[in-house]
């Protein structure tokens, strides 16, 4: 834990205890049920790892962009764009075998990147706030998916805005029998390692970090901040889009617009708790996944409404918002 992390931790423990007491439950009992639901046995643990992977993609997307001083709060929209493209590509060639899976993952990455690039262009070309842009693009992704799947791209027999079911050959391979744990997790971990490499061992990563720490210095040293904004937000969107594609190919096996229920926002908390370091983000994603996957057991056995988890996640983001914990974000114009 970083120095100064004890205060947010204390706030969270007190708030969690207070909320469970308010619900008439024993905080210790609630915590035990939460942990039992998340870690008590191979199946619960596998489900926690599924959540870890789902949180890891958006969290890495947020952390990567934030290292450059850009705030991508549109990971949910990028995951929807990526998931939609993956669902369409994966179902397009039923006889293609594993190629359909690769096509789905590639299409998801590209679509998420395109969705991020829209915000990147707005920031890099026009100097508009990428925060507001990604926020608006979140909603627009959902509306676009709903329009396409309700009209021009409606799947035969579909009752809602969903794509046709993916053929089994386009599913991500399952790692543990009878669980939803798929190749998505190793993929996310490999991505974290790759991002760590890019950040610390490449010229682009150096420029990115320089722009995040001192944009004016980076600009005078010859870094083109406009291109950097475009490239970084595109890459960040691609990471989130790949995440959406893994949810479609690994868990849902078709596109559903609700595939990323707030993971992009929780990803902000995960990225901040992880100190914006890819490997720290991995640990933080596991911690938040415990909260997510244990909450139903806690609700069932300790009678604490599961929404207490969202309450605590919000408090975590709030207490970690201290500027000292963040890189100096370059203000949009």
């Amino acid at each position: 834990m970083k120095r100064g992390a004890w205060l947010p931790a204390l706030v969270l423990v007190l708030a969690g205890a207070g909320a469970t007491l308010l619900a008439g439950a024993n905080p210790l009992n609630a915590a035990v049920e939460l942990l039992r639901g998340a870690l008590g046995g191979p199946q619960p643990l596998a489900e926690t790892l599924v959540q870890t992977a789902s949180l890891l993609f958006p969290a890495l997307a947020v952390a990567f962009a934030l290292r450059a001083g850009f705030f991508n709060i549109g990971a949910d929209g990028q995951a929807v764009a990526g998931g939609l493209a993956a669902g369409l590509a994966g179902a397009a060639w039923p006889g293609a075998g594993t190629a359909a899976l690769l096509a789905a993952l590639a299409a998801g990455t590209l679509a998420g990147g395109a969705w991020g690039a829209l915000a990147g262009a707005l920031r890099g070309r026009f100097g508009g706030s990428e925060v507001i842009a990604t926020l608006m693009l979140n909603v627009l992704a959902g509306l676009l998916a709903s329009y396409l799947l309700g009209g021009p791209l409606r799947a035969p027999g579909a009752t809602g805005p969903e794509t046709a079911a993916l053929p089994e050959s386009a599913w991500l391979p399952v790692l543990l029998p009878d669980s939803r744990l798929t190749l998505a997790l190793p993929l996310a971990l490999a991505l974290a390692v790759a991002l760590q490499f890019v950040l610390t061992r490449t010229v682009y990563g150096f420029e990115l970090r320089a722009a995040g720490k001192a944009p004016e210095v980076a600009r005078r040293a010859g870094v083109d901040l406009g291109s950097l904004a475009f490239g970084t937000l595109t890459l960040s969107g691609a990471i989130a889009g790949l995440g959406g594609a893994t949810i479609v190919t690994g868990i849902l096996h078709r596109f559903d617009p609700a595939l990323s229920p707030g993971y992009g926002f929780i990803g902000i908390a995960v990225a901040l708790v992880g100190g914006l370091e890819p490997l720290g983000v991995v640990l933080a994603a596991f911690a938040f996944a415990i909260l997510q996957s244990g909450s139903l057991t806690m609700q069932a056995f300790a009678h604490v409404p599961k929404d207490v988890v969202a309450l605590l996640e919000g408090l975590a983001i709030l207490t970690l918002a201290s500027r000292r914990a963040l890189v100096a974000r370059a203000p949009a114009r």
Partner: protein
Amino acid sequence: MNDAVAASASFAGLTAIKAAPLVLAALGGVLCERSGVVNVALEGQLAAGAFAAVAVAGATGNPLLGLVAGAFAGAALGLVLGVAATRFAADQIVAGMGLNVFALGACAFGVALVFGHPGASSEVPALGNAGEAALIVAALAAAAGLHALLYATPLGLRLRACGENPAAVRDAGLDPARLRALACAAGGALAGLGGVFLALAELDLYSDGMTAGRGFIALAAVIFGGWTPLGATAAAVAFGALSALQYLLQRSGIPSELMQALPYLAALAALAGLTGRARAPQADGLPETSRLD
């Protein structure tokens, strides 16, 4: 002919109902942002206002007490944002997103606790048609009032100065941190009233997700309206009219998603500078200790 009159009357009425919460939240956003604090937490403030209003109206049987509680809940969240942004030097966007997640989680938690069944509250005593009409008038009056406050009073000048050049405010012997916190609390109260309208005027209950992104539409109205009370109000009314049109044009073949998308597209166009030279306050989003030259 009579049909046309009836249709336009119902369109105007529906527009007023759809626009009122957007206007209130957008005015709250304008007040906050003119003082230099970006408010992405309008969604959470709407939800908090709606839930507090329903909880208190249900407990006391008095919707007016619910209204007051809703305004206070919004103000409390606004104050947290303002204090986090100033005394705790928090990143305003991160703090605002945290407040959204917190408020929506806390409201869902509260519904499960207070009403004993998760998802939605029971029906509670609401404000009725007269209360609804009064709140619509109050929303428009608030627009005029905020315009007068910002452009015709010393306090308004100081608040705007906090958003343009907080160092100058400090040099003038005033405390920009305090002014910003005040603006955030007052703006939160306005957004909270927007939530009250949703819960006790348009409906008579709280349900999870009932704000349905209206806080972000209101934020789009703030931007499209050029960060001014009258501009944001006009934008919010236009967005409300779009929302009313969706009901009237349900069977017209025009995709409803297109009309739902227009507010967000308008905000993006404004951000890209395609709608003229409206701009955010210069120190919007920056700490009150920053010096701009």
